[in-house]
């Protein structure tokens, strides 16, 4: 190749490399620039699973079948059956917030001090006044991986159950699947 053409091309390379870099900036969860990873649950995946699940829960009459509304729900165990460490509060806290906001359920506190005060008051007054949860909310997160050559499809399944503590039955269940496929992580979907 002619040296006169080659030198400007070499000189332009650092400029091209610089233009590919992105300056740090604030983003909104679940926006068009969201990062999509094949080997991990992204923040928008929790948001989608929680939003869809809680809409179905609020659309169901299950929470209204209590003698003294609003229903008292205790957040129980969410089993993590994925290959990664997961803070399940990213899912359950969103559901708890939505239930409280709807006015149809309250959740049992996990704060040690609040529990201590409640036990103290129950001892001083009548222990029979202590309200037991009407429901518990439990679930499981499952990861399924399928491969075809370099292409990987990962499906995260979020299973949730609302369990009636008096009858020992499940009164509502839901399953949300978040599937991602590709050969590498990407920005945008």
């Amino acid at each position, binding site marked *: 190749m002619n040296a006169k053409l080659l030198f400007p091309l070499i000189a332009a390379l650092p400029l091209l490399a610089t233009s590919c870099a992105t300056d740090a900036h604030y983003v*909104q*969860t*679940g*926006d*068009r620039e969201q990062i999509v990873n094949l080997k991990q649950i992204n923040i*928008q995946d929790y*948001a*989608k699973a*929680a*939003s*869809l699940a*809680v*809409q179905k829960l*609020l*659309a*169901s*009459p299950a*929470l*209204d079948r209590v003698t003294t509304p609003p229903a008292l729900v205790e957040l129980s165990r969410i089993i993590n059956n994925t290959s990664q460490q997961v803070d399940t509060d990213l899912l359950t806290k*969103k*559901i708890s*917030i*939505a239930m409280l*906001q*709807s*006015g*149809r359920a309250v959740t049992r506190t996990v704060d040690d001090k609040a529990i201590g005060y409640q036990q103290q008051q129950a001892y001083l007054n009548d222990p029979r006044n202590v309200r037991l949860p009407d429901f518990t909310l439990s679930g499981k997160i499952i990861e399924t991986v399928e491969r075809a050559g370099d292409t990987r499809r990962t499906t995260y399944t979020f299973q949730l159950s609302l369990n009636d503590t008096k009858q020992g039955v499940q009164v509502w269940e839901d399953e949300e699947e978040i599937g991602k496929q590709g050969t590498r992580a990407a920005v*945008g*979907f």
Partner: protein
Amino acid sequence: MKLSNYGFLALGALVLAATGCSTMNTVENVPVQGQRNIIADRRVITDPDLARSVAIIAVNTTPGEGGLLRAQVEVANHMQSVKRFLYKFEWFDANGMQVNNIISANLTEQLEGGETKFISSIAPTPDCKDFRLKLLSAN
């Protein structure tokens, strides 16, 4: 006939384009038994391409459990290829104040060519009377 390099590229592009175009066929019962409460709506179109690939067909609402309003929007892809998009329901109380909530997250969705789909939401509180659906193209 001998194809040039450009000829091969054009042929390849045609094959790719043909592979990307697949549309959906459907069948349903008639007459339809369920009666939707179709409501009047106001639309603001700033992306005409998106309005063709995620076209709004109808909007209906119904009072849900616990006094929570439910909204459902029927959308259709009038194009031949798959369309990915973001949607978000915003909810407002009787005073027109927006009620921020978990349900109003940006959610991803996709429509195959020619597909019709329902996207829905439930009001986060019984006070919510109005809603707005926002749609955004993925690319």
